[in-house]
């Protein structure tokens, strides 16, 4: 129900979030971490290993990189943002030395 006070608050641009809304938001976030069973240490380890693999192919900005678990609707997603500085030029590995009939 829209009340006089709500109306006045909106008129003067003063909309305060209720403490139950704050509680809901905080709980949602903390439960994502709880349910994913992943401690910050493990997440850090994952990040380090990701860097290890990625730097074989790309030059990345390790400081600007972020890896975190995020919740969308009812599922948890691993969201990584990795700024790429440049792509390393690499000679592709020859997978097989046996003649295959198809030239590589």
């Amino acid at each position: 129900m829209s009340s006089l006070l709500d109306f006045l608050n909106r008129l003067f641009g003063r909309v305060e979030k209720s403490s139950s809304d704050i509680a809901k938001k905080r709980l949602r976030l903390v439960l994502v971490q709880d349910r994913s069973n992943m401690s910050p240490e493990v997440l850090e380890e994952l990040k380090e290993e990701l860097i290890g693999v990625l730097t074989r192919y790309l030059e990345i900005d390790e400081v600007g990189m972020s890896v975190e678990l995020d919740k969308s609707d009812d599922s948890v997603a691993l969201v990584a943002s990795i700024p790429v500085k440049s792509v390393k030029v690499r000679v592709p590995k020859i997978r097989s030395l046996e003649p295959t009939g198809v030239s590589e």
Partner: protein
Amino acid sequence: MSGQVIVVTSGKGGVGKTTVVANIGTGLAAAGHKTVLVDADIGLRNLDLIMGLENRIVYDIVDVVEGRCELKKALIRDKRVEGLQLLPASQTRDKTAVSPEQMKELCQQLREEFDFVIIDCPAGIEHGFHTAVAGADKAIVVSMPEVSALRDADKIVGLLEASELTDPYLIVNRIRMDMVQRGDMLDVNDMTDILGLQVKVLGIVPDDQSIIVSANRGEPIVLDNRSRAGQAFRNIVRRLQGEEVEFMDLSQGGLMLRLKRLVGLAK
């Protein structure tokens, strides 16, 4: 005969597990079901006190599992309600005194004698929890509209699932509708939203001073026809028996609230 074994749990302490056990147990017995309450909170015995049976204890659950006395001899008959008995916890031992296997065996014996076996689980997620849930068919999670109680409830729902106790019931305890209406307390819908679809709300119990009074006297509130919390527990008992009962309207309606809403002092 094979009765139903229900464990009442919460993770966090102080949310009202023991009160819930005392009241639904008393309510089920008052409705004519043979019911036994098992206090699995070994070392922190309290269910006897809430039931007003603390002066009648001779033997306890540890005496039974260690074979010092027969199960029947350790059971205490309730003084008010026919068909209601209590198996008290030991106050001198600790949680490790009963193993999950012994609890399973005990529940098996009890379900042959009773329609309902209601287990009061200790707070926490350690040995005591695993023992208390070991012999149960169904779990009730008690929580409060408060961040730490809900976080712990979520954890417990996960652990129950791991123990093959899926789709637990939720009892929302100590809700204050005046605070919900002001936007200062999570509502039941918020709670079920946060905990996910796997929980089914069994009841909503308002915060009620008469709970303290009833604990003081050792008389479960479910027997008090004038109390709102008592009514909430009677509804829970009916739902446990398979009845469809509408949730009570806990909002404090009336002229004052409507006036306050109009000028925006309440939601």
